[in-house]
């Protein structure tokens, strides 16, 4: 027996490294604070920053693997120019000088001739405050990030209804919620805050209900899983609204005080004002007071009557919003029995959930002893909670009926009085904002060599704000803000390449993409996108003549570009998590953050934002040069500190003013970044208690937010059940007003621009029997992760998941190859069966199937060999129409409707994935693939140290 022998001395007290540097994670969009432990100048370990308000020290599976994404062999290593045909992967290395000179030459020619012939689109970009501004300075309206593909239904519905939105822009009050209802929540935004929140709810014994066709991730730990049929959430929500109205379990005082429920809507069928709010001569919206009759709705002591027709002084009739809304949902269309067949949710269950929501909201709610003053001037000594919190994401968003479904969900929240109250869903700062939060989109006039003033992605109030040319055609290449998608607040990236190749409505000279994997998982139809990228005109020139692409990694899209500008990893650059874009605020107060270089690149790469700023200077864009034409900013860090969007307002809100004492607004502070670094790379302000709740109607909050520059006016933000901008679009569709839609879109607009939410069956179903959706695996983020050797060990191929009974009924076996036929094409996949899925739905993990050659994958890797993309089955256009085509998108917002996919699944007969793609040839400069990775960061030391 071996006993008591001398053991090696364990290194129990070694420091984690030589140095710890804080920064902001970018393994997904969550923007957690991280600490990078460096040893010998290399990344040794990454963990969560315990002081950071987003993640409070925790870190997810992706974030913990950051070192391997940072060191990936799939990193691009230097600028490249294409020397073979597009898609061939034949590139030659060039210098940065040649790369920037080439880009400048191409771009300046476009700007001189017609700036809109530049289409500049970015992917999961966290620098839209810069990229959008740059595009406007260039003078092209053709800019957006990937929100049109992802989340715009939620953004638009929220911003036009309650002044804030779901996704990462709002959060449940985890401390007080007793009932948490999730709709289609994926595991990617907000990653760690939701995980932390769920554990708090669990610890407190709150009930968690997940409405989702698939029981994975958060749904797996929910107390109740409602495996709804995809795209029918609007019916379920409508039925809940109806049950609450019938049971008289709604917060009447909240509706009367803080929503437009009392506002009078003109009823003048066929008239030019039908559906608009009744207003007095001064333009004040009217309501009916119990004692005084028709008076302005903002009268402080209004005692509103919420039902009943009234006759306005001019003889027109009008009715309160509440009654119109109630009538919509009390109609038989939303009866639990009527919707059960479509949703798959029994009437008993719907009624029980409605009862539970009401009980959680109204019976014994928490009361916080916090005094505050509302916008009517009334002082309250406490604030009463409504501890029902909601959260919703792609399961609602990625459907063509998502905008209205999300609006219905906001109405459900309003009926429960569950907005920004203790226990409820709360907008994160800088929200709530006015409804809608800003002016219409800029870009109606485009002129050579001239910038566009204003925000390219704005907020239309009516037809007058659409971006249409003299012939009523879209001004934007993606057709956003046109009659096809009037509230396309995030643009429509999914239509850009097809429209550009088809010159619809005009040709694009330069397509400039930043980390948008359009030739693969970021397109609804990757094959058609590849065809458009490689299509040639009769004269032999490409239909899209110039393509510039920036990415840090060898994605599937690299091979299709003409000029590659290699970006750094997230640990090698500055970034700005800005209040002008997607900050890190919470319901408790605004915040922003920086990402800073913690290591130097070991390759010939440059941060994209820095390159963009240099291109801006080379092109002479006014905001990027000084009076004498020299570059205004040294680099991105210099821009972050010194750029002012309006006087005193810049990319970062913390430590402004020459001495760093100002918050929100103040002169640029040359020392600002040092202050951020000292504080862990973030800034945060906490609202004092009297400003922290009911902020849309909280006088002190509105004043403080205005003072800080978060909102332009301290006017009350009245939550909008009835949406007048939609009524205006509907009136145009019905023939009123100067701007008129083309005939072929009239009926569609009249139907979908309904001022109240409604449910409709998506157009693209195509008579196929099963719904098909994707889910986000927690250890991967979209297409990111395959370049990371740790993460791809967790998930390297995906299967098509189907309910056991459905598979049995179809005679299909676990593990066999099946043919998935959708309106957009056919995909071959391997089948897996389980119980945690709606019986009429199949699903798979998103973006795990990859193309060989991309991301450094060899041909035999599981990702191309067994993985698949469901995208190939998705139709990018709605069924053929006469003389025109419409994107497979929400008719109001242009949101890509890729969750509307319907499919037929049959036995394949032959194994192996289909469609198959030729492996991409790797560009020059890529290092050899290491056969073995010894993930051994930092200075070497023996793993077993000296013996005692």
């Amino acid at each position, binding site marked *: 027996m071996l006993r008591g022998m001398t053991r090696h001395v364990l*290194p129990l007290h070694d420091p984690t490294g030589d140095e710890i540097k804080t920064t902001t994670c970018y393994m997904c969009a969550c923007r957690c604070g991280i600490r990078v432990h460096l040893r010998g100048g290399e990344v040794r370990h990454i963990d969560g920053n315990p002081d950071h308000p987003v993640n409070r020290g925790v870190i997810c599976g992706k974030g913990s693997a950051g070192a391997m994404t940072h060191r990936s062999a799939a990193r691009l290593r230097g600028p490249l120019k294409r020397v073979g045909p597009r898609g061939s992967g034949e590139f030659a290395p060039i210098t940065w000088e040649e790369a920037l000179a080439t880009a400048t030459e191409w771009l300046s020619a476009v700007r001189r001739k017609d700036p809109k012939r530049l289409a500049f689109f970015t992917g999961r970009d966290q620098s839209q405050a810069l990229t959008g501004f740059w595009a406007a300075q260039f003078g092209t309206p053709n800019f957006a990030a990937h929100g049109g593909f992802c989340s715009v239904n939620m953004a638009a519905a929220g911003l036009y209804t309650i002044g804030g939105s779901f996704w990462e822009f709002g959060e449940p009050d985890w401390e007080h919620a007793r009932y948490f209802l999730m709709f289609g929540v994926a595991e990617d935004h907000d990653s760690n805050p939701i995980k932390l929140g769920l*554990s708090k709810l669990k610890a407190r014994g709150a009930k968690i209900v997940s409405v989702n066709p698939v029981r994975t991730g958060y*749904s*797996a730990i929910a107390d109740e899983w409602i495996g709804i049929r995809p795209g029918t959430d609007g019916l379920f929500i409508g039925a809940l609204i109806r049950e609450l109205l*019938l049971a008289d379990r709604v917060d*009447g005082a909240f509706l009367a005080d803080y929503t437009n429920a009392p506002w009078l809507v003109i009823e003048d069928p066929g008239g030019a004002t039908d559906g608009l709010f009744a207003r007095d001569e001064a333009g004040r919206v009217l309501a009916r007071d119990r004692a005084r009759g028709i008076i302005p709705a903002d009268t402080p002591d209004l005692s509103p009557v919420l039902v009943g027709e009234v006759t306005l002084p001019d003889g027109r009739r009008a009715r309160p919003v509440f009654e119109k809304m109630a009538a919509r949902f009390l109609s038989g269309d939303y009866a639990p029995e009527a919707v059960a067949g479509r949703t798959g949710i029994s009437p008993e269950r719907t009624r029980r959930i409605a009862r539970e929501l009401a009980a959680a909201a109204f019976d014994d709610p928490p009361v916080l002893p916090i005094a505050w003053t509302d916008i009517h001037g009334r002082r309250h000594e406490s604030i009463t909670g409504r501890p029902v919190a909601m959260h919703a994401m792609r399961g609602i968003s990625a459907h063509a009926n998502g905008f209205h479904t999300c609006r219905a969900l906001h109405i459900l929240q309003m009926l429960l009085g569950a907005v920004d109250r203790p226990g409820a869903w709360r907008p994160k700062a800088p929200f709530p904002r006015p409804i809608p939060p800003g002016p219409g989109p800029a870009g109606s006039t485009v002129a050579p060599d001239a910038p566009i003033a204003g925000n390219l992605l704005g907020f239309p109030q009516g037809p007058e704000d659409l971006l249409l040319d003299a012939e009523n055609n879209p001004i934007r290449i993606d057709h956003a803000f046109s009659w096809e998608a009037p509230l396309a607040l995030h643009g429509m990236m999914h239509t850009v390449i097809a429209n550009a190749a088809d010159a619809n409505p005009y040709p694009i000279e330069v397509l400039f993409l930043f980390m948008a994997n359009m030739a693969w998982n970021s397109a609804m139809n990757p094959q058609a996108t590849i065809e458009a990228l490689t299509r040639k005109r009769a004269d032999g020139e490409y239909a899209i003549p110039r393509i510039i692409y920036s990415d840090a990694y060898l994605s599937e899209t690299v091979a299709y570009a003409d000029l590659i500008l290699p970006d750094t990893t997230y640990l090698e650059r500055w970034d700005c998590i800005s209040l002008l874009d997607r900050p890190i605020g919470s319901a408790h107060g605004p915040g922003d953050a920086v990402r800073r270089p913690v290591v130097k690149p070991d390759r010939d790469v440059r941060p994209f934002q820095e390159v963009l700023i240099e291109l801006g200077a080379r092109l002479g864009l006014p905001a990027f040069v000084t009076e004498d034409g020299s570059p205004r900013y040294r680099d991105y860090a210099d821009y972050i500190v010194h750029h002012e969007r309006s006087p005193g307002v810049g990319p970062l809100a913390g430590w402004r003013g020459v001495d760093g004492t100002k918050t929100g607004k103040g002169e640029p502070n040359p020392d600002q970044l040092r202050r951020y670094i000292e504080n862990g790379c973030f800034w945060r302000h906490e609202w004092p208690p009297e400003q922290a709740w009911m902020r849309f109607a909280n006088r002190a909050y509105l004043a403080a937010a205005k003072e800080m520059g978060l909102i332009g006016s301290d006017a009350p933000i009245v939550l909008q059940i009835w949406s007048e901008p939609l009524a205006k679009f509907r009136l145009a569709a019905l023939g009123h007003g100067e701007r008129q839609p083309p005939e072929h879109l009239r009926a569609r607009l009249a139907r979908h621009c309904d001022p109240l939410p409604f449910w409709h069956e998506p157009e693209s179903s195509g008579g196929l029997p099963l719904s098909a959706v994707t889910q986000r695996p*927690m250890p991967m983020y979209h297409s990111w992760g395959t370049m990371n050797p740790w993460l791809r060990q967790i998930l390297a191929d995906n299967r098509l998941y189907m309910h056991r009974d459905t598979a049995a009924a179809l005679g299909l076996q676990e593990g066999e190859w099946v043919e998935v036929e959708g309106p957009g094409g056919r995909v071959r996949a391997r089948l897996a069966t389980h119980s945690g899925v709606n019986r009429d739905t199949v699903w798979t993990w998103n973006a795990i199937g990859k193309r060989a050659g991309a991301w450094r994958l060899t041909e035999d890797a599981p990702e191309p060999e067994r993985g698949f993309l469901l995208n190939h089955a998705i139709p990018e256009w709605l069924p053929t129409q006469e003389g025109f085509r419409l994107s497979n998108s929400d008719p109001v917002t242009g949101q890509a409707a890729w969750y509307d996919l319907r499919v037929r699944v049959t036995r394949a007969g032959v194994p192996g994935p289909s469609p198959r793609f030729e492996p991409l040839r790797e560009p020059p400069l890529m290092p050899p693939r290491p056969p*073995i990775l010894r993930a051994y960061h930092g200075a070497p030391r023996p793993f077993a140290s000296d013996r005692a």
Partner: protein
Amino acid sequence: MTSLPGTTGRKLGLVIDLDTCVGCHACATACKSWNGSGMSGPLSDINPHSAGIEGVWFNRVHSYEAGEGEGSRTVHVPRSCLHCETPDCVTVCPTGASYKRAEDGIVLIDHDICIGCQLCAWACPYGAREFDEPEGVMKKCTLCVDRIYNQAMPAAERVPACVSACPTRARHFGDLGDPESEVSRLVAERGGVALAPELGYAPVNRYLPPRDPRRFDAAPAKDPAPLPSQIQNPLLRWLDRVLSR
């Protein structure tokens, strides 16, 4: 063969809450990050960009489906060394490389004298032992012994990397030999279980089983709502309702 200490002063281990684990793999990658660059490093990965990728992990997360239909649930089970009280992985070791510490019960491997014979892997029914082929030695969870006592780290951070990372706070670390410790109380409260105790190795780690789903008792309203059939027009109720500001 290698002998075990008679008793250990403490029984350090993990308590993992299966009720809140969402299967995010943070514990797995945080572990790989810490240990791959620490005293057990490297944790080799073979074929990192092609077929046959295979690496050394001290912590792996498995997902299972339990039950059928709407009542079924997906359960995520993180798996790592359970630091058993009487593990065969130690006693089968022919060189004495495998050992259990007398002071805290942590099972470790002395890589200097491990010959990579893999007998311990055969002996461990939990699959907790990992053979690092390029290095030619066995490796395993150390319970982050280089963190939990580490005086170079703030006291609050002296927990295993997996515990520190866990975003749902489903992982807890402590002395399971002390009935008064927080982890022991958690185990008592929640009916924590050992993994396959019938095998006789007396695992120290405990798993907290998924709780019964919360029911939300919707107490009847004080004034019971009328049945839908009793309401001719529900909107009429709002006519006389006073909603004054």
